[in-house]
């Protein structure tokens, strides 16, 4: 079980590579530029990991994307929730 942290936009090669590496039990956290994934609810990774993929809310808010994410019904986490994820998942891999 791995927590994947993506820091780059959904159309980046980092994102493509991460999507190839996600396992069935894995979770995904989108931070920094990756929160632009909020704009595209049809992005493959939303379906790929449906229950275990999150946007970091403070990075959304900083970019003015919070209400769009909410409108699209996408799950968000506070920084505290980021830590909680790392408590659950022993391994993390950052894609940048």
């Amino acid at each position, binding site marked *: 079980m*791995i927590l994947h942290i993506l820091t780059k936009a959904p159309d980046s090669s*980092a994102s493509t*590579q991460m999507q*190839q*590496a996600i*396992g069935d039990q*894995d979770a995904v956290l989108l931070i920094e530029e990756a929160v632009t994934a909020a704009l595209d609810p049809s992005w493959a990774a939303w379906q790929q990991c449906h229950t275990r993929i999150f946007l970091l809310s403070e990075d959304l808010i900083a970019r003015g994307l919070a209400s769009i994410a909410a409108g699209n019904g996408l799950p968000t986490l506070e920084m505290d929730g980021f830590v909680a994820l790392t408590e659950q998942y022993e*391994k993390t891999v950052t894609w940048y």
Partner: protein
Amino acid sequence: MATPDALLVILRHAPHSSNWLREGLDAALVAAAFGQPVHLLFMGQGIMALLKEQGSGALGQKATLPTIDMLEMYDIDKLWVAEGALQRMHLSTDSLVDGVSLIEDQEISGLLQQHAKILNF
């Protein structure tokens, strides 16, 4: 196959365009020098590190090929290459150095699961 105590170093960047590859390889070499089993996974542009016809370092940089050749001296002999990425780059294994192992896209997540330690460059 991979052993659970082994370190997996993922290399995703090409030579010459940044220092990611060089510094990722350095991390792999140091781990191996300390006696840790190290496996490498080349994804995307990282595959460029394995082209056997690479020249010496452009723009005053050191070449990558001698370091790739040196891996066996550090007992790093598992070099995984993502097969899908190879195809998307229109490369064949004939263009790569000897001794690489191909891995299908759907097997990559399994490879990551098998390694207790992962460093992603």
